[in-house]
């Protein structure tokens, strides 16, 4: 049953050192505020799962919080590489990070299998692709009817998933709309699901019947953090801060510049700061 908590408590109660954790968002609705809170609380030895690790995972890896990364595309989308991740993988700085690498199809199917309570997912994939040779978590099975060989990957079952969404109602039901990504699956696949939302509304009575909603009994904790996805965006609330994604490439290129930026913008900052970061990006409603 969903509890409404300040973000600091929602993170403190649900994340532990050594956890396997997903901060999911597919370009849209990235839970930046939750990730920054986790950085401030200095968690260690995390296994980070995400299809598209981008700036927030570059930040967590740069701060030395990750022992392992499970992913399918590690880039600053449309901009380039993740320079803190590169430093960790290529130079072991500030620590080496174990890599479990998949394709998007594999990760999406693995989250889906996790949400569906299955131990594994099967799909037609990885044919001729070399990842299958370097990742022991890619196996195959034969269709018992046609004999066709299909790829199999283990289901993803995070200890905790953090996502950002548009709205919660007073009961703790959560609405996700626009590019919904894999967030419903990530939340349902996890033992604990923590959601930051733009706003709280009385109820969802006026919504279309077929929208993407997480019932309150699937959510562990909810924190209201307006702007909490910045520099990602929230459909219906504010636009993506593409300029900041372009800027990140320079910040992450240098270890010192990175640390200074993190100190000013994360360690010395608070969840409330996100609201003003999106002010100039807010959409006419």
């Amino acid at each position, binding site marked *: 049953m969903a509890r409404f908590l300040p973000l600091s408590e929602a993170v403190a109660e649900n994340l532990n050192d050594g956890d396997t954790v997903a901060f999911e968002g597919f370009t849209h609705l990235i839970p930046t505020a939750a990730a920054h809170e986790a950085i401030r609380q200095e968690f260690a030895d995390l296994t980070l799962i995400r299809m598209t690790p981008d700036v927030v995972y570059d930040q967590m890896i740069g701060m030395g919080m990750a022992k392992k990364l499970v992913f*399918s595309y590690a880039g600053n989308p449309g901009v380039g590489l993740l320079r803190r991740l*590169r430093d960790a993988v290529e130079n072991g700085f500030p620590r080496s990070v174990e890599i479990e690498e998949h394709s998007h199809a594999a990760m999406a199917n693995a989250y*889906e299998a996790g949400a569906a309570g299955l131990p594994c997912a099967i*799909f037609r*994939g990885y044919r001729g692709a*070399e990842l299958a040779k370097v990742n022991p978590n890619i196996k195959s099975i034969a269709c018992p009817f046609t004999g066709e060989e299909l790829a199999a990957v283990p289901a993803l079952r995070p200890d905790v998933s953090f996502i950002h969404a548009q709205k919660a109602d007073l009961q703790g039901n959560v609405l996700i709309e626009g590019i919904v990504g894999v967030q419903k699956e990530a939340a349902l696949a996890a033992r604990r699901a923590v959601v930051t939302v733009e706003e709280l509304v009385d109820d969802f009575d006026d919504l279309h019947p077929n929208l993407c909603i997480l019932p309150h009994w699937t959510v562990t904790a909810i924190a209201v953090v307006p702007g909490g996805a910045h520099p990602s965006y929230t459909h219906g609330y504010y636009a993506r801060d593409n300029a900041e994604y372009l800027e990140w490439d320079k910040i992450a290129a240098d270890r010192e510049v990175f640390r200074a930026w993190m100190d000013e913008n994360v360690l010395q900052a608070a969840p409330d700061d996100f609201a003003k970061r999106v002010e100039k990006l807010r959409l006419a409603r």
Partner: protein
Amino acid sequence: MSKSDFTPNEMMTVAASRALKSEDVCFVGIGAPSAACNIARLTHAPDITLIYESGTIGTAPDVLPLSIGDGELCDTALTTVPVPEMFRYWLQGGRITIGFLGAAQLDRFGNINTTVVGDYDHPKVRLPGGGGAPEIASSSQEVYITLAQSKRSMVEKIDFYTSFGHGEGGDHRQRLGIDTKGPTLLITDLAIWKPDPATREFTVVSLHPGVTREMVQETCGWTVKFAETLEETPPPSELELATLRDLKARTEAAHKGA
């Protein structure tokens, strides 16, 4: 704006856009593929269906998205579906006619590396990885590739097989149980390439205006095969060029922020 006044990159994007039809259902990657698909939509193929892996189906952005999940894509899409559904019903389901890919490294058989430069466990450069590409390459009915030529990107042997093209050539795809056509077109900033019907090696079939065989060979890491009769790619029309430049200008303004 005169016809001769265009860059190689513009020629590449325009040439790629011409390969697309209104009936196509394209799975679009970011960068040159995205520009080419949208130029096609804004010129000769108004009904083309553009799909981005973020789940947006039938999208018609006014500016190019910086990422595969910009709000513009959802705002203009016919519908937006969850990412697992995108990979299951739409890509794996065989609904994509053209998968449009870029590459960090490419070999003559259309195999693509976007994973690492160097050894996988101890890479010289850790690239972003495959994302959707491994299954775009095997599940799309055909694959188009765009790439700016350089010896660093067009190599004799790629460091990692992120996405399978024609493997070692010939019927290698069929031997692996892949029944889609694979890479059928390569469009670079200098030329148009198609696979040899037998060997599947990419062969230059058309040189862009002003480009020589030598220029193609100098920027390619393998010994280039040329078709017996080489065509010259028609230069971008004024409409194509104006459409591309307007799109790029709108995009640049939008990405810099208000």
